[in-house]
C-alpha cells in the first residue's frame, strides 16, 4: 500500500508562530486509501502540522505536496478546492447558521450538481443531523457538532480528509460511533484519512500507519499495530491501558 507516489507528502516542515517555532522539520507521507494517524501529547504540534498542510499558517521552510504538486505557499482557499477537506480542532461550526447551511458551506467547493446526493449520504452517515437540520449550529451538543464538522468536510467530496481530534470531549459511545464512521468511509469509499488524535489507543487501532510527535518532531513511525505494541508508546500514551 505504501508504494508509489504519496497523496500527501510533507518534507522538512518548519512552522513558526511569531518567534516561537512549533514544528522542527517534520516529514510525513499519506498514501491514497490509507488511514494515517498522528498521535502526541497536547501542544506537541499536531494541529499546527494539520493547519500547515492547509496553508494557515504557511511553513517557513520545507514543502507540502499534494498529488505531486507543491502547495506550500498556495492560499488556503485554493488548497481546499483541490480535494483536501478538514474537520478542524474545536470543530468550528458556524454557530449562527443552521445545520443545513453549515453543510451547504461545506458543499460549495463541490458545486451544486451532487448536493442532494451528498446531503442524503451525510444524513445516512449521521442520522442525528437530519433530525436537527433546521437547528442552529451553536445549539448542538458536542457530539452532534463533531458529526456536523465531519459531514461538512465530506460535503466537498474530498480525496483526503484531515480530522483533528474528533474524539475530544465526547462520551466514549459517541467516539466509537465517529470512529466507526471513519472506518466505513475509508473501506467503502476508499477515502484517504489523516487523523490527529490524543486518544492514541483508538487512533492506532483504526489506522493503517501512525506517527508519534513530540515537541514538533516526529519520533516514531510504524503500522498501527507496531506502535501499539511499542513499550515507549504504551508508557507515554496508553497509561491506564485501553480506554
Amino acid at each position: 500500500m505504501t508504494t508509489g507516489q504519496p497523496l500527501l507528502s510533507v518534507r522538512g516542515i518548519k512552522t513558526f508562530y511569531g518567534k516561537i517555532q512549533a514544528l522542527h522539520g517534520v516529514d510525513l507521507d499519506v498514501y491514497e486509501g490509507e488511514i494515517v494517524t498522528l498521535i502526541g501529547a497536547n501542544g506537541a504540534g499536531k494541529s499546527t502540522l494539520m493547519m500547515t498542510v492547509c496553508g494557515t499558517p504557511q511553513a517557513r521552510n520545507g514543502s507540502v505536496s499534494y498529488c505531486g504538486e507543491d502547495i506550500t505557499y498556495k492560499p488556503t482557499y485554493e488548497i481546499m478546492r483541490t480535494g483536501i477537506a478538514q474537520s478542524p480542532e474545536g470543530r468550528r461550526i458556524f454557530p449562527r447558521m443552521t445545520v443545513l447551511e453549515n453543510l451547504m458551506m461545506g458543499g460549495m467547493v463541490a458545486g451544486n450538481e451532487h448536493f442532494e446526493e451528498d446531503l442524503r449520504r451525510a444524513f445516512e452517515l449521521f442520522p442525528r443531523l437530519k433530525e436537527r437540520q433546521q437547528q442552529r449550529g451553536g445549539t448542538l451538543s458536542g457530539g452532534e457538532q463533531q458529526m456536523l464538522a465531519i459531514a461538512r468536510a465530506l460535503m466537498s467530496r474530498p480525496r483526503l480528509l484531515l480530522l483533528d481530534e474528533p474524539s475530544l470531549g465526547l462520551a466514549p459511545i459517541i467516539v466509537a460511533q465517529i470512529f466507526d464512521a471513519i472506518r466505513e468511509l475509508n473501506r467503502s469509499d476508499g477515502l484517504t484519512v489523516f487523523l490527529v488524535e490524543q486518544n492514541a489507543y483508538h487512533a492506532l487501532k483504526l489506522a493503517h500507519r501512525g506517527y508519534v510527535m513530540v515537541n514538533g518532531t516526529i519520533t516514531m513511525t510504524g503500522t498501527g499495530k507496531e506502535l501499539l505494541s511499542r513499550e515507549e508508546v504504551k508508557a507515554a500514551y496508553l497509561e491506564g491501558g485501553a480506554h
Partner: protein
Amino acid sequence: MDYFLQQLINGVTLGSIYGLIAIGYTMVYGIIGMINFAHGDIFMVGSFIALVLIVALGITAATPVLLLILALALVLVVAMALTAVWGWTVERVAYRPLRGSFRLAPLITAIGASIALQNFVQVSQGAKNKPLQPLFSGSFQLTDGGADGSGFIVNLSYIQILIVVTTVILMGGFTYIINNTNLGRSQRACEQDRKMASLLGVNVDRTISLTFVMGASLASVAGLMFLLYYGVIDFYIGFLAGVKAFTAAVLGGIGSLPGAMLGGLLIGLIETFWSGYFSVEYKDVAAFSILAIVLIFMPEGLLGQPEVEKV
C-alpha cells in the same frame, strides 16, 4: 391626525434613505468588525455621480414620463456600479493592507479615507451647493383639508413613493441574497469564523471586497434618492447622513441586517416627528438621545446578537 399622517409619510421616506446607508455600516462591521467611517462619504460620492449623470443625460422635468423613468433607472444602475468601484477601492487601499493589524489602525485610515473623499469632491466639483430642479413635482392629496378648508392637506408625493418602493425592493432582494445564495452564506460564514470559511474554500478577501461593493452600491441608491428628494447636495452631506445611518445601525443592532433597516426607519421617524411636534433645531438631539437610552438598556441594540454564544 392628518398632520400625524403627513409626518409618518415624511418619516418613512427619510428612514428609507437612512436604512439603505445603514446596511453598508452594519455589513462591514459584521464581516470585519470595523466601522467604515468613509461610508457616509461613499453615499455622498454616489449622490454626486448621480447628479453628474442626470445633467449629462439632460434629464429634466420636461422629459416624457416613460423616458424619465428609464433614464433614472439607467442613472441608478450606472451610479451603483461606479460607486461600488469607489467602495472597492477604499477597502483595497485603506483597509486590506491593515488587516491583522491592531484594531484602531483601520479606524484611523477610515477617517482618512473619509476626509480624502470629501476633499476630492470639494476640489473636483466645487464647494458650492449643487441644486437639481425637481424632476417629479406631482403628488397625491390624501385629504382635502375638510369642507371648510381649515384642515391639513396630506401630500404623498411621487418621489416619496419612488423612494419607499425602491428601498423595499432593494432590501427584499438584498435579504434574499444574504439568506439564500452562496455569496450571502459565505459572507455570514466569514462573519462568524473567517479561518473556517477559508478552510471550506471561501476566498475571504474577495468576500470582504464584495461586502464593500454591495454596501457602496446601496449607499449610492440612497445618494440618488437624497438628491431627488432634497434637490440640493454638497460635498459635506456624507457626514451627517453617515452619522445618522451609523446611529441607525447601532440602534437596530450593529451586524444585523433587519436591525439596520429597522434602525433607519426609527431614526427617520424620530427625526420627523420631533421636528413636527417639538422643534426642528433639536431633531438630531432627539435621535441621538433615543440611541443613548436604547443602548443603556439594550447594549446590543434592538435586534443585535449578544456577544456570547453557546458553542
